[in-house]
């Protein structure tokens, strides 16, 4: 398909997607608050920037990065590739044979999170509210590291076959302990960064990876094992953001001594 028609179609879809949000906001503004929106012109221009930006972003992803990502996910989880890589064709695959899958999961987790628009928004807001104490890039990298580790561990779980809730509950316990010791001001932001990591970019790629892996690994079912990667991607950033804050607090305390 032609680039321009694709951009146009995506723009139309994006506009349709925001219709409920816009109608709720403007409905309340007109019927409940009953005041004109300040700087309506800027808001409308800004909103069209957001929509056009989203459309270009999605077309770029869909046309170039998603096909490559899903193709790689399929090829890497293909039993033929996996058994060829260790040269032992007749032996059953063990978890170390999936080395490239883990590495792919790490890099896809990191790169998709860095490009996540929702995370950029939260990072900008956090930077503004904390008067610069929380860096936009610092937060984005901390979250991306969390997602990367989370998804890599998630693929390991699918290969390994241990139940999902075992990891999630262990993750909750770590979050609980960190909450007791982390700087108080970071806690709400850390919890939030768990939720923002997985929207437009990460979900389709990660779901493809999970389902592909669960289909190809012997004795795994897509229903039981294919899902759950996104849960890892939303739990681990909480841990990594609190760890980042704990680390910088510890460093500044050490420097002060």
């Amino acid at each position, binding site marked *: 398909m032609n*680039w321009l028609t694709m951009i146009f179609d995506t723009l139309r879809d994006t506009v349709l997607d925001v*219709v409920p949000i816009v109608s709720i906001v403007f409905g309340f503004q007109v019927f409940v608050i009953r005041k004109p929106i300040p700087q309506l012109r800027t808001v409308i221009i800004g909103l069209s920037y957001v929509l056009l*930006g989203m459309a270009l972003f999605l077309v770029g992803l869909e*046309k170039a990065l998603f096909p490559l990502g899903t193709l790689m996910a399929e090829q890497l989880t293909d039993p033929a590739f996996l058994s060829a890589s260790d040269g032992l064709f007749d032996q059953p695959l063990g978890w170390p044979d999936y080395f490239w899958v883990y590495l792919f999961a790490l890099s896809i987790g990191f790169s998709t999170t860095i490009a996540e628009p929702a995370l950029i928004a*939260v990072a900008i*807001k956090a930077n503004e509210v904390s008067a610069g104490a929380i860096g936009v890039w610092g937060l984005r990298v901390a979250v991306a590291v969390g997602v990367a580790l989370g998804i890599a561990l998630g693929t390991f779980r699918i290969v390994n076959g241990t139940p*999902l809730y075992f990891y999630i509950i262990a993750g909750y316990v770590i979050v609980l302990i960190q909450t007791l010791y982390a700087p108080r001001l970071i806690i709400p932001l850390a919890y939030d960064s768990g939720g*923002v990591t997985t929207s437009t970019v990460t979900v389709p790629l990660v779901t493809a990876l999970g389902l592909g892996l669960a289909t190809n690994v012997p004795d795994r079912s897509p229903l039981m094992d294919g899902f759950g990667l996104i*849960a890892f991607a939303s739990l681990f950033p909480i841990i990594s953001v609190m760890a980042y804050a704990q680390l910088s607090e510890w460093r500044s305390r050490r420097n002060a001594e």
Partner: protein
Amino acid sequence: MFVLQQPIPNLGDLLIGFLLVVLGLTLFIQGLGMALFPIGETMAYAFARKGSLWWLLAFAFALGFGTTIAEPALIAVAEKAAIAAAQGGAIDNSDSVRDSYAFALRLTVGLSVGIAIVAGVFRIIKGWPVQYFIIGGYAGVVAMTTIAPAGIIGIAYDSGGVTTSTITVPLVTALGVGLASSIKGRNPMLDGFGLIAFASLTPIIFVMAFGILY
């Protein structure tokens, strides 16, 4: 490329795609500060000045429910969940049964996010610490996991991650921070954040409940 030893298809398309992603993000960030942040903050200030708690909570619910039900990522996951459930034998494998399963799942998640934003806004007004709610929510998740059917658990955990879209996150964050800065005695950093966390936790519990009841 090096691992699979296969050429990357359409290198030209890949480059244009990458360029579009960067251009799109730049425009999006530009628009954030002009539209989404000011809208969220203006609404927060207006509701705080108006002093009507019920309208604020109604707005919070509408925002959570309305934006989630139409969320493309959720629609995709719900469809996949329906297919997986049909293949697993949990529901009949026909189009209409799958569609109604997917729609019911979306409705469940929408409802849970609406309730989450209401609870989160109420928390900001009261100034209660966020961790009590989150830890309480985790306890709920763990409790539900022990009684939910195994097939729904992965889907439930995933649905928590897909609810918060690119447009909703900046709006909701600005709303929370705006509320916390306009109410006396609230710290925007301590009280303003946390709405997204609520919105990603409640769907997990609700979807597992859905799995038990459906």
